[in-house]
């Protein structure tokens, strides 16, 4: 994969990916726009600027790997994988349809580029740890990236995995936390407070950074910092905006799991400058 550090290019890719996400979810008639839009800039940075990956690579090749632990953000992952050439872009319009290889949540056996199966929250980090351990046994000099949600921090398994990643000194593991502050029922702080997240992760033995998750320079810089830390897993807590890029979706729990209707899609695409 050709990588770019050009911010304007990354912004342009992210804009187009957000458009694809909204079209996909509209056509599916269901799905989760809010968390795909908040995670878009992180995932675009990973696949177009940071990770060593390619649709040409074989499963067991030494390569960077990505685990989407917050599996409900599948649409943004699918849009990015299609853009990278893992499968045809037309497939995106079959999201959530019977016989489509694009399930509502990531399913590794059916979708090229999806490493492990997620969708039940809290299970991705353990799997990312397992991949990192496997890569270590194979002496691969590669990184494993894992994207989690802030509501997901309420799952106990996350903290089991946080402990084991630090215990096994998984320096190759770099996790992102999409801190959009909202979950289905409302604000995370009202439903079940998870803060202070930086102190929690630090106390579990992780190297922690906190950045603006919509700032490409900050995302790339944080990963460079994280790569320098060899004896600890890294957590990059990203302050993000749920529904980012569509004014009427931003910071509203309603858009966690609601598909835009035709009128809403038209307005959203207009804001994103879709042709």
């Amino acid at each position, binding site marked *: 994969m050709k990588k770019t550090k050009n911010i304007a290019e990354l912004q342009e890719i992210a804009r187009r990916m957000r458009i694809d996400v909204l079209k996909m979810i509209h056509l599916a008639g269901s799905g989760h726009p809010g968390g795909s839009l908040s995670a878009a800039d992180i995932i675009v940075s990973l696949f177009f600027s940071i990770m060593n990956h390619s649709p040409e690579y074989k499963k067991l090749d030494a390569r960077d790997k990505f685990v989407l632990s917050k599996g409900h953000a599948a649409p943004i992952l699918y849009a990015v994988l299609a853009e990278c050439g893992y499968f045809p872009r037309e497939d995106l319009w079959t999201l959530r349809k019977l016989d489509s290889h694009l399930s509502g949540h990531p399913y590794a056996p059916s979708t090229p580029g999806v490493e492990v*199966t997620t969708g039940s929250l809290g299970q991705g980090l353990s799997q990312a740890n397992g991949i*990192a351990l496997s890569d270590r046994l*194979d002496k691969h000099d590669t990184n494993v990236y894992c994207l989690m949600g802030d509501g997901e921090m309420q799952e106990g398994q996350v903290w089991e*995995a946080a402990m084991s990643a630090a215990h096994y000194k998984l320096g190759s593991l770099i996790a992102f936390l999409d801190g959009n502050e909202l979950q289905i029922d409302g604000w995370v702080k009202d439903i079940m407070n998870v803060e202070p997240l930086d102190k929690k992760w630090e106390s579990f033995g992780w190297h922690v950074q906190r950045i603006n998750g919509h700032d490409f320079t900050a995302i790339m810089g944080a990963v460079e910092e994280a790569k320098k830390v060899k004896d600890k897993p890294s957590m990059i807590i990203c302050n993000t905006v749920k529904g980012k890029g569509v004014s009427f979706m931003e910071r509203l729990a309603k858009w966690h799991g609601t598909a835009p209707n035709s009128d809403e899609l038209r307005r959203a695409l207009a804001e994103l400058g879709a042709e």
Partner: protein
Amino acid sequence: MAVELSLRDFYGKTLVELGKKNPNVVVLDCDLSGSTRTSLFAKEFPARFFNMGVAEQDMIGTAAGLAAGGKIPFASTFAIFATGRGWEQIRQSVCYPQANVKIVASHGGVTVGPDGPSHQAGEDVAIMRAIPGMTVIVPADAYDTAAAVRAAEEFTGPVYIRLTRDKFPVIYEESRKFEIGRATTMKNGSDVTFITCGLMTHAALIAAEKLTQLGKSAAVLDMGTIKPLDEPAVLKAALETGAIVTAEEHNIIGGLGGAVAEAVSGNVPVPVVRVGLPDQYFSSGTPEELLEAAGLTPEHLVEAAMRAINLKRGGKA
């Protein structure tokens, strides 16, 4: 008195054998490696052994990740914790994507004994069997265990193997080969067939001897794989003997008895008398006391067989 050997000892020894043969074999445990005998592997291959602490969900997920990297993880702890604490992780991260993870759990059933109901797994087979894409194996003795573990390593896909704390009487030869999904005929007979797994296969062989003295001929079919069930063997037994008794050290609901009844009812509806743990919690006690209390004895199997034979003649239960 038959020779008794420990299933978990043979599990540990077989892991070491597989570890030497295949560098992709890795092992995980949840702070019970001494009990499950994965400690034998840990000693031999420390870099390929991962103690996950008392965290079953993370162990299952980590195993799934290792499998994604091409490893063959064997994940072990007690049966109740492996299947209960990690059930949804087993469903979501292992079985749904068909990750090549082997879950080998010790301390199944009531023969766990004095630790009491918190540690006695009577539901594990039922809840593993309910997950699509899971293979469920309950070995009958130590040699069967070694053979089943070898078969699981060669097989691609999720496998659950249930072992026990107690030693079992040896009924197989050391050269035993385990074929996943194939029942083993231990004894032929014409009046009734015992379909059994685990410790109850030995009990059924004793019961069959007792039945001979009563003038009845009982077959014994060891159903080492509960899922996928060897349906042809079950239906053949139903056709040939016309009555079936199932026996297992597991809750009467949802285990081997349930699987056999499901297979028989829609195909060759003959009487199926199920012997298993009553749907209740037991207590602390010795394995012998608990087996007696649960009715998992050769004497009780003889009664069950007589009842099944009577039922096929149109008699009342």
